[in-house]
């Protein structure tokens, strides 16, 4: 492997890590509050509101049912408006966040709903406000599950970021398409796949490790 190829791959690796981490982070900025909103307004939640729940629920379902590749294309005008162009890593972050946010909201909702209703009741009996319950009970008690959810999300976004390579999204997926597929360079294709696998393993390992260290239930 010459240094040019090596440089190409390292650059791709960096772009992939950048896209994945930034998208996940921005995705949580939107998805976490929405997930909390779903948990709180659910009919079993601490402040049931069927109307709000229904609307958010439907929006999330619609967004989640659009395949990522199609979303990627659908959002091109929006991406151009935000970033100024529709290709490259920063532009790819836009559809990644749009697709990650509803997914994250669902992950957060399911984690928060795992929290024992007895503990919530105990907090209410102490005079805790809903606000306190969200920040000092729900998020604290569900932290392990939330971190596991974030790890799974990170893996999913990593996969999506590679998919964005088909539309010149940058990163390892882009390299795999450009060199491996269009130019029949199987070796580069295999290396990008290997790098993706390793990256996925590292994300998974770190995430699970953090979750297990922070978990005091065992």
């Amino acid at each position, binding site marked *: 492997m010459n240094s040019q190829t090596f440089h190409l791959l390292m650059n791709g690796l960096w772009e992939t890590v950048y896209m994945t981490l930034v998208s996940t982070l921005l995705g949580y900025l939107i998805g976490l509050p929405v997930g909390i909103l779903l948990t709180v307004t659910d009919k079993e939640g601490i402040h049931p509101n069927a109307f709000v729940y229904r609307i958010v629920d439907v929006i999330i379902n619609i967004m989640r049912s659009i395949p990522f590749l199609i979303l990627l294309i659908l959002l091109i005008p929006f991406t151009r408006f935000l970033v100024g162009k529709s290709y490259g890593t920063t532009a790819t972050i836009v559809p990644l966040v749009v697709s990650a946010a509803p997914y994250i909201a669902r992950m957060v909702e399911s984690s928060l709903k795992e929290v024992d209703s007895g503990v919530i009741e105990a907090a209410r009996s102490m005079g805790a406000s809903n606000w306190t319950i969200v920040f000092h009970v729900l998020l604290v008690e569900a932290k392990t599950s939330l971190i596991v959810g974030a790890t799974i999300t990170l893996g999913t976004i990593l996969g999506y970021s590679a998919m964005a390579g088909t539309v010149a999204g940058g990163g390892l997926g882009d390299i795999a398409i450009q060199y491996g597929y269009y130019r029949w360079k199987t070796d580069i294709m295999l290396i990008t796949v290997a790098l993706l696998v390793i990256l996925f393993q590292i994300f998974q390992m770190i995430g699970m490790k953090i979750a297990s260290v922070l*978990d005091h239930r065992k």
Partner: protein
Amino acid sequence: MSEIEVRHLSKSFTQKDLKVDALSDININIEKGDIYGIIGMSGAGKSTLVRCLNYLERPTDGQVIVRGQELGSLSEKELRQARMKIAMIFQSFNLLQQKNTVDNISFPLKIQGFPMKEARTKAKELLQTVGLADKAKSYPSQLSGGQQQRVAIARALACDPDILLCDEATSALDPQTTDQILELIKQINETMGITVVIITHQMAVIQKVCNRVAIIENGHLVEEGKVIDIFSHPKSRAAKELILRDIHGEPHGLMDPIDEITEGKKIRIVFTANSAFEPVVSNMILKFGQPVNILKANTRNVGGVAKGDMILQLPADRETRLQMEDYLRERGLDVEEVTD
């Protein structure tokens, strides 16, 4: 003024257009310093009732007046303030699993905006009170059920409550641990003057610590009064049933043998202070020369008075039986027939 006054309280739930009355027209007065028991079979509505006392459940009708304050008239914020003085402990302890004991106990103080350091200091003192000074850094999963309930009690005491509500607080514990926890609750009641309300399905719990008891059946209050009176002279069917069950709440081994016996009459005798130390039953058997079956016997300490009850099967012969009953009554025992 009663500490807690419940007036014409009713609570109904609607499940798929079907209205279920969980509680109907409950009236009780709980005085300051009482350890007030509320007993009933599962599904009787006692858990709903205790949740109405701090408005975790909003009654459909009626009033709950705590220390002169009608809870129904309070705003959400005022209600949260009021709840801080009405502590509660639960069957499943309900501790924060991801927080250690000190942080669990500090939690209600944190809600009230206490500085963290002050809260922790107080938490450590309370840990001492409940006898777990060495478990400050432990997490709930590292503690036994009894220890977790002690932490929950310490947490309940953190805000210096006036009232402590116990919702089946000992039901998940073994008999020995149950006794220890009840002892602790009693001690808290005596030393801190906290009014205690105990919800349970176990008569033994009531007898051990309560001074008054309310019996709830199918959402109705069927009997209410001093524990000592209700134990000696239960009037309602529900009260009799609860008393006749085994001390740990399981009706094992008692009802079956009675059903098998076709001859003879079953009576329940209750010992009072002046009779419990005399071997009444053996003396009676010697006097009449007739065998008597003891189907169940159990004596214990009720409110500081030696108390106990036995279920005897007397001979089928009516004459002897009546004489025996008189003999027992003469010796200061309460005698009543047991009907299945």
